[in-house]
């Protein structure tokens, strides 16, 4: 990880000055937005396939059970192997991905028993694993920062503060030992507690203790004032690196296995018959989902990460009917939501409307005394913005949106009304019931329609030149006659092509 960060920084240093990098990354907004966008991109890439496989809820399950992997790996590291408990260690990530795969395996086993449905099996497996994780956290790992808050919404706003320092010049590592001139030595009573006496009492024995001994990285040494010359440092937030790796892996996976993912998702039976391994692809996808879930865990928590997996692909699905375009739009929508989400958390809606102004407006109208400053959870605001974009797609999508669907249905129902009336006239024209059935004034009664509705339909048909009114009776024109024959034969053909879906 350090190597990757260093390589990345060296790349950046070709274009921008060191001070600018530090200033940029020290801004909570920049770091949070970068992390949010990276999570959104990796989530949407994998989420597209989850959505198309009907496995949206599997991401929910996995994002919870990775906690078990994290906790177990953490306990193994600290208690069994005696390592330092670092929450961004690769061992935790390994543990998390194993837990993700474990969830899928357990679900499969329960389902294969034939006693449970798939959704029930999933709903049973993940609370079990999550509950074990919660018990382990509360029993053994209380001092770790795996608290409820982190699990719920994460700490993306603080990500800027948790950095690795990289030194590029004047890099001096300082080791302070008791002989060092700057060593802070203090006397400490060795037997006071044992004998229950005060250090001032007689018989107290003292030892020399060094309070600042140890080895200092260049950054730590400079901060502690052990260096004359300031080392050239760049501070890089750890979460950016983690989410960057996740995004790169997801992107690589989708690019390299695009064909295989598409085939196994669309038709797993054919994939199997052709010698591809749908099971292997499925588990590879689940491992990556677990990796992204654990990478996002610190930043957005295990519950909100589902939104990054599912909502952007769902919006993209409404906007496109090609998989490749969906895979392009999903990450864009997610990243856009993450970008504007930070603004929303700080009180700006799409960078144009101030939420504070709206609240002030509400206050002045209603006389309520609501707090006018708006400062809310960043990750939750990001999800809200992603959802806003989804809503826009849902309402306004040119082909599958609410409005275009309504317009299409309305025009279909208008066309249907037209056809019913045309067929009625066609059937009764030139028959002896013609005088009762086709009188314009009473025509609506035969259909049990309201008079205005019949009036509208007749007006439309007359405007189209399909129907003429002669002596108060409706009759078909030549064009109307052709029209009736056209839709009748179309209807008969449709009957020969039944759709059983």
């Amino acid at each position, binding site marked *: 990880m350090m190597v990757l960060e260093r390589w990345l920084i060296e790349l950046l240093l070709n274009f921008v000055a060191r001070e600018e990098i530090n200033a940029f990354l020290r801004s909570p907004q920049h770091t949070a937005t970068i992390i949010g966008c990276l999570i959104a991109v990796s989530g949407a890439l994998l989420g597209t396939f989850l959505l*198309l496989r009907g496995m949206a809820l599997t991401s929910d399950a996995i994002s919870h059970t990775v906690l078990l992997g994290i906790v177990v790996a953490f306990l193994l590291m600290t208690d069994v192997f005696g390592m330092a408990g670092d929450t961004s260690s690769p061992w935790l990530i390994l543990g998390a991905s194993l837990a993700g795969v474990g969830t899928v395996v357990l679900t499969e086993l329960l389902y294969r028993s034939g006693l449970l449905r798939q959704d029930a099996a999933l709903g049973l497996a993940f609370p079990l694993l999550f509950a074990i994780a919660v018990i382990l956290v509360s029993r053994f790992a209380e001092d770790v920062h795996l608290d409820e808050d982190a699990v719920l919404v994460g700490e993306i706003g603080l990500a800027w503060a948790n950095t690795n320092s990289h030194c590029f010049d004047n890099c001096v590592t300082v080791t302070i030992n008791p002989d060092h001139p700057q060593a802070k030595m203090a006397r400490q009573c060795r037997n006071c507690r044992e004998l229950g006496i005060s250090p001032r009492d007689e018989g107290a024995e003292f030892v020399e203790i060094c309070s600042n001994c140890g080895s200092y990285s260049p950054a730590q040494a400079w901060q502690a004032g052990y260096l004359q010359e300031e080392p050239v440092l760049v501070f890089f937030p750890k979460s950016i690196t983690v989410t960057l790796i996740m995004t790169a892996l997801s992107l690589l996976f989708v690019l390299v296995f695009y064909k295989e993912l598409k085939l196994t998702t669309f038709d797993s039976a054919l994939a199997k*018959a052709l010698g591809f391994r749908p099971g292997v692809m499925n588990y590879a996808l689940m491992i990556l989902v677990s990796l992204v879930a654990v990478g996002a865990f610190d930043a957005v928590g295990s519950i909100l990460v589902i939104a990054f997996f599912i909502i952007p692909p769902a919006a993209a*699905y409404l906007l496109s009917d090609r998989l490749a375009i969906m895979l392009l739009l999903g990450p864009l929508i997610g990243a856009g939501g993450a970008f504007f989400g930070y603004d929303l958390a700080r009180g700006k809606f799409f960078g144009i409307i101030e939420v504070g102004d709206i609240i002030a407006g509400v206050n002045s109208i209603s006389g309520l005394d609501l707090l006018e400053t708006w400062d809310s959870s960043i990750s939750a605001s990001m999800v809200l913005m992603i959802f806003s974009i989804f809503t826009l797609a849902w309402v306004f999508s040119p082909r599958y949106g609410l409005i275009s669907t309504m317009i299409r249905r309305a025009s279909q129902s208008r066309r249907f009304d037209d056809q019913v009336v045309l067929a009625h006239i066609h059937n009764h024209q030139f028959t002896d019931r013609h005088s009762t059935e086709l009188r314009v004034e009473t025509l609506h009664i035969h259909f049990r329609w309201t008079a205005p509705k019949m009036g509208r339909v007749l007006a439309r048909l007359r405007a189209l030149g399909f129907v003429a009114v002669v002596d108060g009776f409706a009759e078909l024109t030549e064009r109307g006659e052709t029209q009736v024959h056209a839709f009748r034969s179309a209807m008969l053909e449709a009957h*020969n092509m039944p759709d059983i879906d």
Partner: protein
Amino acid sequence: MNDRVPLALSVEDLTVAYHSKPAIWDIDLGVPEGVLMAIVGPNGAGKSTLIKAVLNLIPRAAGTVSFYGSPYEQARSLVGYVPQRGSVDWDFPTSVLDVVTMGLYGKLGWLRRPGRRERDLALFALNQVGLLDLVDRQISQLSGGQQQRTFLARALVQDAQIYFMDEPFAAVDAITERAIVKILHQLKERGKTVLVVHHDLQTVEDYFDWVTLLNVEVVASGPAAEVFTSGNLQKTYGGRVSYLHDGQVLAAGD
């Protein structure tokens, strides 16, 4: 069986069980090369199960299957498969051409992408099934018959020796039915072997020259003229088939 023609498919003692209830039971089947075979039987007789077990898509409880003498793993490129139309999600965001190209993925193998050659092959197959106008159509906008023809084109590009089709005639329009029959005969002329799960007893003798009657066990299998008799149909369907006086099948109950 016939000694001059090699067996395209040979099934021995094949049994498949769902929760220890046999779906197909001790199937022995020899299919000579170059026949058009209908697999006929009542609902729940295990017709689809037979195909899936032969193609290793579901676990076998017992038995062996060989294609031209080789097990399936070594004969993949010889086999083409047309699953039931309802087995996939037709709202999947993809085009007709793309679905047909999927038939070539097996030959491409892992990681290699379809290119111009694959596109041309897919277009050729789409022309054969009469869908050349709908190449770029989103698959959810196809009628049932067009969906079936898309699947058929996907199998054609595989250029297999032996084809398995699971109910290709189910709920399709007359145009599609004629198109499928035409293609079946073209395949036969090119020496291919085709096995079709079929429901419409009235058309069996017109469309196929070989028949397997199945009801969990094989009731009879062989040339249509010898096997497709009222006696065998009674055995397959129980008493639920009625006949016209000239022996023509009127209706088969489920």
